[in-house]
């Protein structure tokens, strides 16, 4: 009976530790509503038209832009290690009366090296019927890792470019006014994807030349793509694997004590007479 009690204690203690780890995961996954409200109020109302002129947005910050059908609209946002970004776009089309047919809209995401990134979920491309009022697109990226082999195009921490455009439309509809809304959110995926190794600098355009150029004041302005996440880039060294491993170690120690005590029975060898 005593053995059972000890084991139960051990398991409960372990669960307590785990609660800490699990709680950590849950906390970081849900951004606090107040934070998103305060940043959301001041979203940009313009979009860039190329990689170089992309407008910087922050996660959970809705960005809007008025544009002409056929424009290529670019935004750029920072995504850090262990985050999985989801980009959502909504296009309000011109009045159906002035359109001549279905149009296909497309949302593409590129990393800081302008490599196209795959979407794991979401409708990246959608055809809007001739009478549709809006098109909604979304793209969920893979979880960003802290390191990847140079030959892989795994997502790495750095800038991510979002490009929104119409890819197929009747030629008569070019140049008509559209209103676009883009919002990116990031979800922290915890340590499940945490890999070893890290980059010296995030995959941000001009990361290496920025410090070198800072000396001459007349050099080109700081590109918008160099925006950092709130609180700066993480080192990638911290992840909840530390908690899991520590919890495992503690559980192992408790289990060891429990096992040790289990071999001792009630604490006195049975054949020794009481009072001896």
């Amino acid at each position, binding site marked *: 009976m005593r053995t059972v009690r000890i084991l139960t204690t051990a398991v409960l203690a372990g669960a307590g530790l785990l609660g800490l780890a699990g709680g950590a995961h849950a906390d970081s996954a849900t951004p606090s509503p107040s934070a998103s409200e305060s940043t959301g109020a001041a979203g940009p109302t313009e979009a860039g038209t190329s990689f170089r002129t992309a407008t910087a947005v922050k996660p959970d910050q809705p960005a809007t832009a008025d544009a002409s059908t056929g424009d290529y609209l670019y935004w750029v946002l920072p995504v850090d290690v262990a985050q999985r970004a989801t980009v959502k776009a909504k296009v309000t089309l011109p009045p159906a009366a002035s359109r001549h047919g279905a149009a296909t809209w497309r949302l593409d995401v590129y990393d800081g090296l302008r490599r196209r990134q795959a979407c794991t979920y979401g409708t990246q491309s959608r055809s809007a019927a001739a009478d549709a009022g809006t098109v909604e697109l979304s793209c969920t990226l893979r979880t960003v890792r802290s390191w990847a082999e140079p030959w892989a195009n795994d997502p790495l921490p750095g800038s991510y470019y979002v490009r929104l455009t119409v890819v197929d439309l009747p030629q008569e509809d070019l140049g008509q006014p559209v209103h676009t809304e883009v919002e990116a959110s990031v979800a922290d995926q915890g340590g499940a994807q945490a*890999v070893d*190794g890290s980059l010296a600098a995030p995959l941000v355009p001009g990361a290496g030349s920025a410090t070198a150029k800072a000396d001459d004041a007349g050099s080109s302005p700081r590109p918008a793509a160099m925006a950092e996440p709130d609180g700066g880039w993480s080192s990638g060294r911290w992840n909840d694997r530390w908690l899991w491993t520590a919890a495992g170690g503690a559980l192992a120690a408790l289990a060891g004590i429990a096992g040790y005590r289990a071999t001792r029975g009630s604490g006195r060898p049975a054949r020794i007479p009481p009072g001896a």
Partner: protein
Amino acid sequence: MITRKRLAAGVCGLLAAMGVALLPTPATAGEPDAKPSPKVELTLDVSGSMRARDIDGQSRMAAAKQAFNEVLDAVPQDVQLGIRTLGANYRGEDRKVGCKDTRQLYPVGPLDRTEAKTAVATLTPTGWTPIGPALLGAAQDLKGGDGTRRIVLITDGEDTCAPLDPCQVARDIAAQGIHLTVDTLGLLPDAKTRKQLSCIAEATGGTYTSVQHTKQLRDRVHQLVERAADPVVTPVPAEGSRQCADAPKLKPGLYTDREKFAEHRWYRVDVRPGQELRAAVSIGADRAVNNDYGVLLRASTVHGREIVRGAEAGDGRTDVISSGLRYPKAPMDAPDGAEEAPAETVCLQVSNSFSAPASVRTDPGMPVELSVDLVDGPSDASDAASFGLGHGWWLLGALTLAGLVAGLLWGWISRWRVTVWRTN
């Protein structure tokens, strides 16, 4: 999660403090006084057809004037703005003369709002639509300085001055490497005008808008002028060569070049051991191209061995196709007698698989934007998992079981030892 946040905050604070102490912050690089001021030229069609009264009940000319007045009031301080007209003066029927009729109404420079507005007010719809010569003139007006240049072309009809194709003119201007963009606005455009204007926009990386209302015209012109004021990195022209041996050596930075269909361009970059080369390339589709296309960026040694490549393919309507690569060079000890290990010359090859119908001119080549960056090398992974740490319930189960077995063994051994000791 408090621990984590505190840790992160602490680390960030420390890094920030170090950054402030050690490095001049890059933000200071963009001081307004040092920035080259962007130039914009509004190019307005004043041809006879602008008399038509079909924009919100007023004439196209009146709509344009109203829009101009409101835009001129809101031009950002540091933008140098000029106005050029086309077809404003010659009333006659002689096409040759009519097609030369383009004139700078207000010179590019710091804006005097009253003067500019008075100049605009004098305009009356008159002559022909020489878009090509107007673009050439506007490009001339915008010469000088390092800032971005933007032509905003507002017209209601297609160019009536063949054989000078305005679309080709725009592409030639853009190919001069002067960061010039042409944004076009068509007032109630017909199919031909739309085609021509969107072709001009496409050729220079600009935008095309079809205008139906005065408010739309004003908002769009205002937006384009504001856009010109945004600070942006201007790339440096570079000319890649046909093979690596005589390729230009690039330092970290942003470069532009031109590449024809199926052409290869080579560049060289010196990468020291312990550094990581990052290169990204975009090739712009600035003309009508076939539906499928691709780009290949390849890093190879001077002997031709491929190290790593970035490739991308696509189809359909696009502005650019781009790809990139990373090449971390392993750290190496300096050889005897040298201060540091020698840098390796890496050859970068940019090639494309664009193609076009035979009717499309291949000259000048398509715009290439190449970004080269050198950063410190990554700290490589010694284990798949972060620091070799574990994660998940199986890990806990395994560790607990291992602990239990260890405890049991320890207990049995010590009990056995006590028994042995007692019996002796």
